[in-house]
């Protein structure tokens, strides 16, 4: 009887030991969960879909290459994606689920500041690394060195730098007074002060016409801009509504020298909602490289990979893919350097001290005033129906 027991125990131990021995021979493996909290529907869908695709493509590429090796263990990434429907309440609920229910330590999004400024309250106490292009993080001081929210990682350049590019284009066209038209919300307010500062520095008067969110009939606001005798109009967002405002400007015959906007599709200017080219020049500032008008071979090759991966990512807002794609790769590199996939504070410190060579040029957090990323930016002009691009290289070394 005793022999029988000993034999059974030996078989049981052997059965348990076999897979372990096999795992040691093949190397240990693990899974790191990555959360995505993006606007996959709703009014900011054109921002959320590419931002999500960037993470998904990067994760696929990393996993296809066998994953990331950290401390002798090879980890693959697993994505949990949540659609916040472009709503603040849904963004907070999604973040609660990702962080508190699914115990995810790395989350991308929401990319829009109005949503991120609320969902940040979930990630900060949970010590989650949260990547977002939210401008509200910049205006709210969340990315300042003095802030306790050290794991919020801004994925776009400082708004002041983008505003300087915006106003530079207005100045190029000889604009003296510009109307900044955008919804009355946190994202807009985060952009207003840098825009006004840059305008003042360039000797341009800026007036702000904020409209209720969900506006689609811009007649009243455009008429007001005309009444203020502006000679330039700048439209911050939502990008999907740009044809509506352009149609109102053209049909109400507002005499402007140029129309500018953030990450707008230049095709809006070539074939507008009114079915013919705009009667004034158009430009679009990009705080990333352009997918449609790639400035170099690397971006061009990436654009083709991206289109093959997710054909839904189209138009100028496809550029929002750069708010996540390189940063996902950068996160994997930071985990390797930090030697951990658990200690988010250590990974966070590595992220802010490294330089990563990505598709969007050299990427780093070299801004001493706040944790905003530096990466290649761009400007697209439409003049006489022709589209031209210009690149502003990253300041990382």
């Amino acid at each position, binding site marked *: 009887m005793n022999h029988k027991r000993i034999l059974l125990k030996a078989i049981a131990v052997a059965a348990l030991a076999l897979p372990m021995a096999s795992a040691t021979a093949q190397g240990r493996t693990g899974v790191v969960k990555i959360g995505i909290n993006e606007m996959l*529907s*709703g*009014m900011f*869908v*054109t921002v959320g879909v590419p931002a999500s695709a960037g993470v998904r493509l990067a994760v696929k590429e990393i996993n296809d290459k066998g994953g990331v090796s950290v401390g002798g263990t090879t980890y693959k990434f697993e994505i949990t994606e949540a659609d916040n*429907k*472009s709503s603040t309440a849904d963004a907070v609920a999604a973040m609660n689920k990702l962080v508190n229910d699914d115990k995810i330590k790395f989350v991308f999004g929401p990319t829009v500041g109005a949503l991120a400024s609320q969902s940040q309250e979930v990630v900060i106490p949970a010590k989650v690394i949260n990547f977002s292009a939210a401008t509200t993080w910049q205006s709210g001081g969340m990315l300042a060195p003095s802030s306790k929210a050290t794991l919020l990682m801004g994925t776009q350049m400082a708004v002041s730098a983008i505003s300087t590019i915006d106003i530079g284009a207005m100045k190029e066209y000889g604009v003296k007074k510009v109307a900044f038209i955008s919804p*009355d919300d946190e994202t807009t307010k985060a952009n207003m002060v840098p825009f006004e500062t840059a305008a003042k520095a360039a000797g341009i008067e800026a007036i702000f*016409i*904020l*409209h*209720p969110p*969900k506006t*689609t*009939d*811009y*007649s*009243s*606001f455009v*008429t*007001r801009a*005309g*009444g203020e005798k502006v000679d330039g109009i700048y439209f911050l967002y939502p990008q*999907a*509504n740009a*044809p*509506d405002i352009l*149609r109102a400007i053209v*049909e*109400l*015959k507002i005499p402007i020298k140029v129309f500018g906007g953030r990450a707008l599709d230049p095709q809006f200017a070539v074939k507008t*909602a*009114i*079915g013919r080219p705009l009667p004034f020049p158009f430009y679009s500032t990009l705080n990333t490289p352009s997918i449609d008008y790639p400035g170099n071979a690397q971006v061009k090759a990436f654009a083709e990979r991206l289109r093959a991966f997710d054909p839904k990512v189209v138009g100028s807002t496809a550029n929002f893919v750069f708010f996540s794609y390189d940063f996902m790769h950068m996160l994997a590199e930071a985990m390797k350097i930090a030697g951990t996939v658990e200690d988010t504070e250590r990974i966070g410190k590595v992220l802010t001290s490294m330089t990563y060579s990505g598709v969007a040029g050299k990427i780093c957090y070299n801004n001493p005033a706040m944790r905003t990323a530096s990466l290649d930016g761009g400007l697209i002009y439409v003049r006489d129906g022709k589209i031209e691009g210009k690149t502003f290289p990253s300041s990382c070394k």
Partner: protein
Amino acid sequence: MILFLQHALNGISLGAVYALIAVGITLVYGLSRIIHFAVGELVMLGAYVAWETWRLTGSHTVGLAAAAAVLAVIGMITERGIFRFTLREPLTGFIVSLGLIMILQGIGIEIWSADPRRADPPLAGSWDVSGLIFRKQVAINIGVSLLVLLAAYAVLMKTRYGKAVRAVADDPSAAALMGVPVRFIIMTTFIVGAALAGVGGWVVLTNGSISPFVGEAYLLRGFAVALIGGLGNVQGAAVAGVGMGVAESLAAGYGSPGWNDAYVFGIVILILLWRPTGLGRGSSGAHL
């Protein structure tokens, strides 16, 4: 002065949609005492029906007819399937209409997703009359809304059917004793109200982009207009709709535009404090 007139003109276009919605609300309330809050979602459905029809046929005229016709059917279905069971308890009908908002929005998101959609405008460009700019599409939209409202008014005031509607609104029991088919007449107001919302949806589509949430903005204003015009008062609703649109546009033009909603609803509150039953005649009850 030109700028002021331009803002007023922009506002008339907005007000035309509010008037269409408000007349629908007021008709339904006048006969059933049900405050039909889901009418904003009917506008949304009308806009999508017009959009789908435009995609299939390339015609906005067919889109307009389809929006009115399909919404009329939806109006009948909702009355037959839901609201007729709440006629004795209008408060229940109101709560049911709140639930209907969620259901119709959910259906909209399921079928069309929450992404904004737009159609090529039927008429682009504008006329410049001594500095006052008339957008061609806006002129068409105002014309269509005016025609529809005038037709609704003429039917109510000049036909036997209209007489029956007014009789039911004044005293349903007496109307029934006189042989008026009260339940049938009530059902028709749901149909007409929904068809008007369908036309409103078409106007919204031709003005800009649409999404499953587009009804929200119009519902509150449509309801406020119905209150100002006097619940149950069709003429009051039409006039108040245009007034609301103009007030909103002037607020955007001369006030702090971000406070637009606050200005508009501030005016609504002041009017209702001054005249709790609205500006229209006999709005404490039903006067069609």
